[in-house]
């Protein structure tokens, strides 16, 4: 991919939570890139640091959490300053509440959260909450913002947006709320949309509709999507590339086909074994394997490879001693495991 297509480069990102009980190393050296227009899936068991990655990029990590190391370089395209001009900004160096970061947040990088109900203020209309984002980042008045909000709701497949823009969240179904939140996220035409498990709160039918909607919106608007999920089936539908996280690190990164047909890391392989396959008859269906053991407690990271206590292919004296290297096994396919050294 051409270098000017790079949108975000995350290098050695470490985000820790300093609690009384100890330090939680939620992210412990995360590296990956996001390209313009790319849909990148971030998968892993719950607690592996997916949401913290999203919050770190947006610089909204809650206290007592803090980015302690690493860089998040944002390649911002300057529209007014001649085409093709690109400005490099290290987001980790910005004041999280300062004007520079706030100009990026919501405008360039937007969030679609996990629970649309809890993520909308119950005492403000969705119109109010969407217009607010529009007026914040675009130089438009109330009336114009409202027109844009209605247009965005319409694009997000929200029925009768003109009449229902003044609804309160509790008057809408879960699917409509999520459409409203997506409209809000896209209202300022961001170059990156971070969707943090956007469909976990929805039923299967609605989930399918929302996923279809997001794909078609991406097709029309061309933004990149960082799609966070623990559901590999959703990844297969949505994403071009996948990063697999385990205990605050990326353990494998590959195009989606390679992840499904040629997984390298034992953790990825185990994840794949734990999902049911379509087309299998119930009788023939193999016993679904869940990954043995549980994620170790977040205060104490195992020595060597963090996955070794649960790994079926671990090598005594190696995996529990040395940090596995980050290897490129095939072009575009990287894995953090000694088996491929």
């Amino acid at each position, binding site marked *: 991919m051409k270098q000017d297509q790079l949108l975000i480069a995350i290098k050695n990102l470490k985000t820790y939570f300093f609690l009384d009980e100890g330090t939680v190393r939620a992210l412990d050296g995360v590296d990956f890139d996001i390209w313009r227009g790319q849909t990148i899936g971030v998968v892993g068991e719950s607690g592996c640091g997916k949401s913290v990655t999203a919050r770190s990029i947006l610089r*909204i990590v809650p206290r007592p959490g803090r980015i302690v190391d690493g860089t998040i370089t944002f390649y911002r395209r300057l529209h007014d300053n001649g085409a093709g001009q690109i400005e490099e900004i290290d987001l980790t160096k910005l004041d999280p*509440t300062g004007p520079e970061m706030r100009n990026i*947040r919501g*405008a360039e990088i*937007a*969030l679609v*959260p996990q629970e649309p109900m809890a993520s909308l*203020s*119950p*005492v403000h209309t969705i119109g109010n909450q969407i217009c607010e984002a529009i007026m914040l980042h675009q130089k438009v008045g109330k009336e114009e913002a409202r027109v844009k909000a209605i247009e965005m709701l319409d694009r997000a497949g929200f029925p009768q947006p003109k009449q229902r823009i003044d609804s309160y969240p509790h008057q809408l179904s879960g699917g409509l709320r999520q459409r409203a939140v997506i409209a809000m996220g896209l209202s300022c035409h961001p170059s990156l949309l971070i969707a943090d498990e956007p469909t976990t709160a929805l039923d299967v039918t609605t989930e399918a509709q929302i996923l279809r909607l997001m794909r078609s919106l991406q097709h029309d608007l061309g933004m990149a999507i960082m799609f966070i999920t623990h559901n590999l089936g959703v990844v297969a539908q949505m994403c071009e590339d996948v990063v697999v996280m385990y205990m605050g690190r990326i353990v494998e990164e590959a195009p989606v086909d390679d992840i499904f047909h040629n997984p390298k890391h034992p953790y990825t392989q185990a994840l794949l074994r734990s999902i049911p396959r379509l087309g299998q008859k119930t009788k023939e269906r193999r016993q679904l394997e869940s990954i043995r053991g549980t994620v170790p407690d977040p205060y104490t990271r195992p020595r060597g490879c963090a996955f070794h206590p649960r790994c079926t292919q671990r090598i005594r004296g190696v995996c529990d001693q040395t940090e596995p290297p980050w290897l490129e096994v095939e072009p575009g396919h990287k894995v953090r495991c000694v088996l491929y050294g």
Partner: protein
Amino acid sequence: MLVYIARRVLLMIPTIFLISIISFVAIQLPPGDFMTSYVAGLRTMGENIEQEAIDNLRERYGLGQPVYVQYIKWISGIILRGDWGQSMEWQKPVKDLIGERILLTVVLSLVSLLVSWFIAIPIGVYSATHQYSILDYVMSIISFIGVGVPGFLLALIIMYFAQTRLNLNVGGLFSQEYINAPWSVERVIDMLKHLWIPVLILAVEGTAGGIRTTRANLLDELNKPYVELARAKGLSEWKLIWKYPVRIALNPFFSTVGWSLASLISGATLISVVLSLQTTGPMQLRALTSQDMYLAGSFLLILSVLTVIGTLISDILLAWVDPRIRLEK
């Protein structure tokens, strides 16, 4: 919304009726009545009261008659003629006795309430958004002391200092010459000069409590996903805090308006006694101890009705600020 209010108002009528019965029965419960002790008192002082006069009084209040007759006489007087009966101890109509006192009490309490909210809310918001900062600790300690120190003690301390150090005459709500004077601009000014001490004392308690409530409620809200999404939009901290979580954290204030209204009248009795304020608290206390039944009954009734009205106001306010309640069918 209008339907909601109308329904609530209609529901109030039977409630108030029931309350009036209970108030009346409650003041009838103690053995004997005022007349017996009044006449006995006069006789021991050697005065002779005509049996006829006694009977007249008894007839007027229906004292010898069944309770329900007395009740009907009492309540119909209030509703039809605005006649709250006669205070037996003060020998004056109840209406004249408590009218001004209620006005003064409401002014005093309302001013203290507003002052305390005005101070408490910003401090509470600061404390919550700067949790565990030095100022938060300082504010917490001060507000704990404010909650802990009894109001009457504070009243005594402030009176002592105002009188000895500042040479101010601080008891009461008026200077001597204005106590029984009719209302005039000078009288209002005189009242304002006296008002600040009770307001200060009442506000200290209210403010301390208000800080605790605001801080605790806001802390609950600050980590909610809707705050995070507002932040992710790029809103400035100041704007998003006041628009979203504070708005929701303040709901409890609206629901307490209900009982505040009643405690406005009866509350602060102790402080009023200490500061000898012409508010309702001390008079109510006295009426209850001396079985001055019409006075006491009027207080009970007014307080209960105020509580009912207060609850209604609270509910309307809550529905007004919270669409989840307003739009519920």
